[in-house]
């Protein structure tokens, strides 16, 4: 922009900035405010979501509908939403802070317990005890994600460390070789893309469905 000293309202400023302000009385603001709000509500609140829904349903119907998993014609869950497991023959998901039951789809959220809160320490101790009791011979340190509650209460994944930690217990309960179970984990393992984007993890529901495809599930504990 050129530097032009001049009168307060100099000729270089565009006409519309210079004071040709066509302003009506203050109440004239009510009409644009009301009408614009209604138009924008229709555009951004009705047209926009409906158009996105239409495109989504045509192009990505499975994803838009919740990535549901079918087995024998029955919906048995979603690839993206975790489920709770406590049987020795299944890989356990992460602890869930949702209430009243874990992995309650209507109560997503975390525990919100602070790092010093005695309730957190008590909860972790109880989870460690349950894992040890289900697998008495296993003295390896327990991977942290297996004893801490997720942010959503619906975390579908566990870390690969958490999966391999449970491999021995699952193999024994299912009378499978450790190599078979570890092979299944490996087949479902996901690693960071380019070593940067993502985390080493495995989807628990998919892994357990793969287990069921190999052998029938053992009874509860």
């Amino acid at each position, binding site marked *: 922009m050129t530097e032009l000293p001049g009168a307060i309202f100099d000729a270089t400023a565009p006409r519309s900035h210079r004071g040709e302000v066509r302003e009506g009385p203050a109440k004239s603001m009510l009409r644009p405010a009301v009408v614009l709000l209604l138009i924008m509500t229709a555009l951004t609140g*009705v047209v926009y979501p409906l158009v996105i829904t239409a495109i989504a349903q045509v192009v990505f119907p499975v994803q838009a509908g919740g990535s549901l998993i079918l087995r024998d014609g029955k919906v048995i869950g979603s690839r*993206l939403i975790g*489920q709770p497991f406590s049987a020795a023959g299944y890989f356990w998901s992460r602890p869930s802070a949702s209430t009243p039951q874990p992995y309650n789809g209507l109560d997503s959220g975390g525990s*919100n317990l602070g790092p010093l809160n005695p309730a957190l320490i008590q909860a972790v101790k109880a989870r460690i005890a349950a894992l040890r009791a289900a697998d008495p011979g296993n003295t390896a340190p327990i991977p942290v994600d297996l004893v801490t509650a997720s942010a959503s209460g619906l975390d579908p994944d566990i870390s690969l460390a958490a999966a391999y930690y449970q491999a021995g217990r699952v193999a024994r309960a299912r009378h499978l070789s450790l190599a078979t179970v570890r092979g299944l984990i490996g087949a479902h393992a996901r690693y960071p893309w380019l070593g940067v984007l993502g985390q080493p993890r495995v989807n628990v529901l998919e892994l357990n469905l793969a287990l069921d495809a190999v052998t029938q599930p053992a009874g509860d504990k």
Partner: protein
Amino acid sequence: MTAQSWGLLALFLAIALLCVRPFGLYMAQVMEGAPIWPVRVGGALERLIYRLCGVDPAAETGWKRYAVALLVFNALGALLLYALQRLQFYLPLNPQHLPGPPPNSAFNTALSFVTNTNWQSYTPETTMGYLTQMAGLTVQNFLSAATGIVVAVALIRGLARHSARTIGNFWVDLTRVTLYVLLPIAAVIAIALVSQGVIQNFSAYKTVSLLQPVTYRQQQVNAAGQPVMQTVTTDEQTLPMGPVASQEAIKELGTNGGGFFNANSAHPYENPDALTNLIEMLAIVLIPAALTYTFGHMVGDTRQGWAVLAAMIILFVPLYALCNHAEQLGNPRLSALGVNQTASRLQSGGNMEGKEVRFGISGSTLFATLATATSTGAANSTYDSYMPLGGMVPLFDMMLGEVVFGGVGSGLYSMLIFAIVGIFIAGLMIGRTPEYLGKKIEAFEIKMSSIAILVMPALVLVGTAVAVSVPAGRAGPLNPGAHGFSEILYAFTSAANNNGSAFAGISADTRFYNIALGLAMWIGRFWPIAAVLAVAGSLAAKKRIPVSAGTMPTHGPTFIALLIGTVLLVGALTFVPALALGPIVEHLLLWSH
């Protein structure tokens, strides 16, 4: 910090920086009314809107009319949103037949979404019907974002113009931002999110069968009216549904942050994997970062914009590093129990309480730092469960005044106000009349800038002091001790800065918190906006002083350091005592044994 954490930061910043110039230029062209093709395509619709509204698009107004129009429009928006919530039971698109929330909760939510805060004291899955989510909440996701952007543009015009009486036409600016910037970009992001698993439908909630039935204990009321614990077994799980992707896209793009679900961006249906996490982070930073270029372009010197962006990035990286470091270190109390928190090829490790496996420490802490440095307030992890210093970063991000990228528009206009104050301080030190971009900074600008900056700390500190002094306030926190204090401090900091994130253990759906935080959000949003528009009007009317040997350049390292110093000084000096009572004392307690 792990190499993966640095790598993620590098990948994120590289893509974000690549977007700054094209999007910044595009927004400048839209706001200047350049005849680029999207404007030509939407021109007919745009003119129709003006005709229906009775607006003359060529007529600009001064700052006072601009401010009144903005306030009237936002107040009406709040009224409509309040009514939609209260009446949702009687309106269509509510397949779960959810009742309207109570008045104090609806009041809080209405102000929350209109102020771009998106603080949520309610549980969305069981509170809001689809119509309220779309026609109420999604709409304000757009309009509050557009409001922020037009204020920034008005301030830029104030700096760019000289000897002018007007700063723009609010109705035209708002319409253009929504039509040409927010809607198309949000649509692209929404489709990208759906492709990766974010849901978008109008189904009723789905009931699916569990692979293994779950047994749990639940409190029930028996025939005598006494609460008893019952053991219940179920083999079903209810999956919430809804038009999520369309709201998720604008939630991030408009730095809003209000989740469709309670778990917000931690919910797998809002943010299913690392790629959507990256897309959402880029959506958050896109407009706040690109607006710095818009600024530079509109004032005729893009170096001015890059300098502001550089200051933002220099503030951002150490904050991320601190947060990431604290979380990756993990919780010593858990290490003592024999829990393995070490990062390896097989696990992210670190403090995983309140974090999702697919994001790990890197994806959680980068999102957290970004969502609080911008005024987004979305969360893909629960900040309440962060380590003391890790959780202090989101808190401190907000206390800086949401200027590290900041909210859409609000980040830039707040940063420019800091720049004005910084230049004023520098001018005092060398005994020269301060000037910014050829405009003399005088008493009126400094008064208004002081109001814009000081409203927030006053709301935070007074609000927190009141809350810890009354029983209704002390009833809020979930966690004992210093952490409970942090929860209250966080709530008022989040509200007054229009961020919307929380140390979510606090029970804020009470009459006290709904009203107190609602007022903090409203005042924290619109008092500074009025002051910023006043500065814009005053600057626009000034003559431009030619650059001379005595002019301090505002695009070099000296200016960047001055700007960073001003932001840190105001943020740190104001809030260090409060931080000492919360996260800092908690940190000392944690590591003292």
